[in-house]
């Protein structure tokens, strides 16, 4: 698979900060993958998203390269890059620009000068895609947080990006809202062959990703598949997160002398394995 995003030697120091928020990091993200970026507060997770679409400009350095979908990010290409990257932010209210659902979904299209006749069609389709058609003319104050995030996703999908970044997009939602937003993004990812980057504190969400980047104080301390990351209990503890439930369960089971094969990755597999084990005993 091709890389859709690649960072090499990227650093960023906020004005008047003593230490860089991002310290000389390099990584690649594969096209069509779901990547979770995890790390404690202030580890630089959100800074990375803002570097990807040029909201923040990295420290000047001759080897610094940020490439998105084959485009090298610079002052001239920043709008091209933003056409390819959609970000769903944390606070549902603070990213709702339009006065109604339809107006908000249209905002990105208006910015790109899409003719009105096409816009009407695209807006309807995008709202229908996220299942919000009955709220087309609703005002944001009458919507729940989860519904507002759905609208934010519709607004992003309307401009057909290649990459969707969820910047702690579900952290202000209740568990049901969180689940439904994530399953919506998964559905859209499969349908439109999107690349998803999810910045998250939710370890159970990260566990379902294809790839995980672990950040600590502006440095990438590990990158890999969930099963290799979560096996390292000390690493997870170091960044102040708790292992996903099933990894904690497997560790406990192993401690109690039950042999759990390393290939088990999901709750379903573990359940099946334990049932079979039960039959054998």
């Amino acid at each position, binding site marked *: 698979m091709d890389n859709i995003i690649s960072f090499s030697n990227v650093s960023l120091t906020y004005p008047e900060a003593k230490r860089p928020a991002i310290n000389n990091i390099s990584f690649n993200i594969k096209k069509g993958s779901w990547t979770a970026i995890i790390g404690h507060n202030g580890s630089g997770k959100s800074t990375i998203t803002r570097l990807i679409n040029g*909201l923040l400009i990295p420290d000047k350095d001759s080897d610094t390269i940020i490439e998105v979908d084959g485009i090298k990010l610079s002052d001239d290409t920043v709008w091209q890059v933003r056409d390819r990257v959609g970000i769903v*932010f944390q606070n549902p209210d603070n990213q709702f620009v339009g006065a109604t659902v339809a*107006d908000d979904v249209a905002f990105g299209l*208006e910015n790109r000068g899409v003719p009105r006749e096409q816009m009407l069609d695209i807006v309807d389709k995008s709202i229908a895609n996220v299942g919000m058609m009955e709220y087309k003319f609703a005002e944001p104050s009458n919507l729940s947080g989860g519904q507002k995030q759905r609208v934010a996703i519709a*607004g992003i999908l309307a401009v057909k990006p290649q990459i969707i970044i969820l910047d702690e997009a579900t952290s202000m939602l209740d568990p049901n809202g969180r689940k439904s937003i994530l399953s919506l993004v998964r559905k859209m990812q499969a349908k439109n062959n999107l690349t998803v980057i999810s910045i998250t504190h939710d370890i159970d969400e990260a566990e379902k990703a294809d790839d995980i980047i672990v950040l600590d104080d502006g440095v990438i301390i590990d990158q890999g598949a969930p099963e290799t990351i979560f096996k390292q209990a000390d690493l997870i503890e170091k960044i102040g997160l708790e292992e996903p439930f099933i990894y904690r369960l497997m560790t406990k089971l192993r401690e109690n002398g039950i042999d759990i094969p390393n290939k088990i990755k999901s709750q379903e597999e573990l359940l099946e394995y334990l049932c079979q084990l039960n039959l054998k005993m």
Partner: protein
Amino acid sequence: MSKIIIGRYIPGDSLIYKMDPRGKLLATICFIFFIFLANNWITYSITVFFSIVAILATRLRIKVLWDGIKPLIWLIFFTSLLQLFFTTGGTTYWQWTIFTISSYGLTNAVYVFIRFTLIILISTVMTLTTMPLEIADAMEWLLSPLRLIKVPVDKIALVMSIALRFVPTLFDQVLKIMNAQRSRGADFSSGGLIKRAKAIAPLLVPLFISSLETAIDLSTAMESRGYRGSQGRSRYRILKWSKYDLYNLSYFVLLVGLLLVFRTH
């Protein structure tokens, strides 16, 4: 509480709702000027009659219109009383130091009362039947000639619509902050005027900070969604004139015509 909107729009589908907000805004503004054409009993009666028909055409309950006048009722009475006691001329009925009640003062007081009340009623008819967003669109259209002298009308319009959109959000924040302060023993509902005013200060500081945070978040979101000023933007929402606006226009022209014919020259 969070349903509060500027102008208290009430959904409906009578004739006036179908009119274009631009026409309604223009008619309301012109009404405020043309009402000064009335200068005798006949012309005032005509204006009152036309206004009552307009009010009835909204098919709204009289109660909501009364709610529109209520906050201003004392101002209306005060202005009328000033006219009553300080206008001299005609027959003098009563006099005490500087206060006089004369026939001129009496008619002037009634005229001012009618004029004031009608202006408020007609403006209320507009705000009740037009969504705030539509009013913002109409204002943009009204301001559009200023583009010629490089006034950024589109940006002003965007600012207006975002301001309207965030009224309920800020309101929710106020409630949240109030509850937070209440849970620490703050009291907003008792005590005299000064005590209550003092209780507001601890609300304003957190509200100010949270609005700034909201503004920063919003501008980040707008930029990442491709907003780069009004150049090359297309529009999703557009206003269209219809036959109902013709009714609006002819009704207004008729009123002005009658006023011109029957006013005292």
